[in-house]
């Protein structure tokens, strides 16, 4: 049993942490999220070229540094601490994840382009009616000669405004909620017939509603097997969910740390409020939530390579724990900060907002609790 990071992993963590500390302080981040474009393309370039982190989790054959899920976990936790907006999750973890698991003939080329910082990807999977059900799809892809024609509407596609490409789930067969008939495509965002309505999100990010109106896509846009894409989608979404758990841990660390600092400084009734037992216990509970979340994130990340059912159970249990922990830590941080916690000026509220969005990302606590129950009680699953 060993929960230590390798030398390479520790170095990755230190590299990112020190870069973000220098270049991505809260004021800088505030400017980024309120800017016209909503992200920093030059930082993305720096992630690729100066830091080399975009390749950290890919194998050497694919032009990466030979790491894997643990490296993604490290990056995401550091990104959580700095509330980084740039699309590592969509591009490297999700886009890269689909490509490396699919055995697509051009996977290596696409991944090389991701590693170089040239391709940015957003994941267009959710639909207005589908909540968190990955197979609930009205979007269709119909055979057209050797290629496909895509029609439909995808909801709240995070990072789409910055993306050069979209990973799109669509029905190539089956009825609206059926497990079979789901296919995955890599689509050029600027293809004819793709339109977007871009908007900000409450946590400072950007997203789009994406509409496909008779979009012609070539045969090699298909990622994975035609009509049998759902297991691949579930695998990649589990990897993404484990990654947002890590991001949640980063967010939680800052919620906890910021609250401790504030409570030690802030005086009321002639003493620092950190001396009040009721607040001490609340901060202790935040600490417990944080430590349990770290454990669950490690557990889920380490089990990503297990069988589908084992992986799904591990990820869902982590997401339940982290969803609850984020709510508790976020609400506690605001409460202990008092009125100051309510202002837009302090970073703490922005951690609370990001934490709140992570709570619902790729499924709420209830969604994952139900999934866990199904996997652990129903033999048929």
């Amino acid at each position, binding site marked *: 049993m060993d929960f230590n990071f390798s030398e390479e992993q520790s170095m990755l963590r230190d590299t990112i942490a020190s870069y973000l500390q220098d270049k991505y302080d809260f004021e800088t981040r505030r400017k980024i999220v309120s800017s016209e474009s909503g992200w920093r393309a030059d930082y993305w370039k720096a992630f690729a070229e100066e830091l080399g982190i975009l390749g950290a989790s890919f194998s050497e054959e694919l032009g990466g540094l030979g790491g894997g899920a643990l490296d993604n976990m490290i990056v995401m936790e550091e990104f959580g601490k700095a509330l980084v907006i740039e699309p590592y999750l969509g591009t490297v973890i999700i886009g890269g994840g689909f490509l490396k698991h699919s055995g697509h003939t051009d996977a290596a080329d696409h991944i090389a382009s991701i590693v170089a910082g040239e391709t940015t990807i957003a994941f267009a999977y*959710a639909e*207005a*009616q*589908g*909540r*968190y*059900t990955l197979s*609930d799809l009205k979007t269709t892809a119909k055979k057209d000669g050797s290629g496909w024609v895509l029609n439909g509407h995808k*909801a*709240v596609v*995070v990072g789409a405004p910055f993306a050069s490409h979209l990973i799109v789930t669509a029905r190539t067969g089956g009825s609206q*909620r059926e497990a079979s008939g789901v296919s995955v495509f890599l689509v050029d965002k600027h293809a004819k017939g793709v339109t977007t*309505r871009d*908007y*900000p*999100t*409450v*946590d400072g*990010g950007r*997203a789009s*509603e994406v509409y496909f109106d008779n979009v012609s896509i070539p045969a090699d846009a298909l990622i994975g097997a035609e009509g049998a894409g759902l297991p691949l989608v579930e695998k990649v979404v589990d990897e993404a969910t484990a990654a947002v758990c890590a991001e949640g841990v980063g967010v939680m660390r800052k919620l906890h740390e910021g609250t401790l600092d504030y409570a030690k400084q802030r*005086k*009321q*009734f*002639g003493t620092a409020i950190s001396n*009040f037992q*009721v*607040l001490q216990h609340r901060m202790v509970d935040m600490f417990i939530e944080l430590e349990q979340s770290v454990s669950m994130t490690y557990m889920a990340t380490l089990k990503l390579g297990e069988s589908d059912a084992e992986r799904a159970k591990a990820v869902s249990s982590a997401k339940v724990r982290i969803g609850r922990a984020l*709510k508790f830590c976020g*609400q506690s941080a*605001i*409460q202990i900060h*008092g*009125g100051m*916690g*309510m*202002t*837009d*000026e302090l970073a703490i*509220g922005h951690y*609370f*907002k990001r934490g*709140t*969005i992570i709570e*619902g990302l790729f499924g*709420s606590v*209830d*969604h994952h*609790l*139900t999934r866990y129950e199904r996997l652990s009680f129903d033999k048929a699953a």
Partner: protein
Amino acid sequence: MNLDFSPEDLAFREEVRAFIAENYPASLRAVQEEGEEMAKEDFLSWHRILAKKGWVAPAWPTEYGGPGWSSVQRYIWSEELARADAVPILPFGINMVGPVIYTFGTPEQKQRFLPPTLTGDIWWSQGYSEPGAGSDLASLKTKAERFTGDDGKEYYLVNGQKTWTTLAQHGDWIFCLVRTDPNAKIQEGISFLLIDMKSPGVTVRPIITLGGEHEVNEVWFENVKVPVENRIYEENKGWTCAKFLLAHERSGIAGVARSKRGIERIRQIAAEELADDGNPLIQDPLFRRKIAELEIDLTALEFTELRTLASEHAGKGPGPESSVLKIKGTEIQQRITELVLEASGNYGAPYFRGFPKEGGNALPIGPDHARRAAPTYFNVRKTSIYGGSNEIQRNIIAKMVLGL
């Protein structure tokens, strides 16, 4: 014991329900449905209609313009307002400073301030909190030093800063706690002053909160001259007014009627939203359970409030029991906003305030209820902080009720 309302109370309910149905402005309904920030006139239009009818200040004695309702009638009234989703009447004039003025003010002060407070011609702001003094209200630092003006009259020179001043951007007057004797013990040496916000030296600066709203402000006083006749009650005895006001502030804070309406809305939203299995969310066992628990907790709060109300009716003022109402009431309000956000699913994330609009309307992305779900959830975190944080309320119960 008897849970029923009397026939007179039921008739009263019919009367107010009919009045609201006929008189509540349709324009306000539109503003609320859009989820936009309300303008000053939006707040005041309903206030003025009620003032004309003589119903704007249900708790005031009739001699000062109250309707003479019993506490049960007042309860029915607030239920009916919530049921109609009516814009709340701002508490600062009607529930806070008004009662202080008619209880502690001189005849001249009553004459001068009560009528325009009723009509809405004075928009009051509350100057209690300070940057260093939130729930520890008595540690406030804003000073008021007495001096004789060139005109031979007595004035206070006010210097300091107030914060979390709700809607002060519209304020005409502000009621403030100020320190008039720096050498006295902490709760002594405080006075209750009414300050004209147009006075030279008063500056209002916005504070933008988590949901992106401009709802609160900082108010700065720099050598502001305030005539001594604007002080309510005795010099250095302002704490008496402050305690009186806080008890009144807390008595309305349970918000049972609004929370009932909030739960109705959740049921409606959950009937429209689809759960993971494609069926309406209202059929999802986990979500149903949460609504059920919320309803039961609200019933417990409601009957606790009714018991408090009945004892007030019997002549007892709002006591430390109101802290129970504040704690449970705000927790329920917060849980309601959590469930609305949860019900909104992925569409809880988009954020529209201040975003470019098309054709004068917010972009029609996602269902209407989702549009304000997250900002409201963030905003309502304030309820367990303001009016004396819930931790402070627990201290009050520990000390005053349990004798700990």
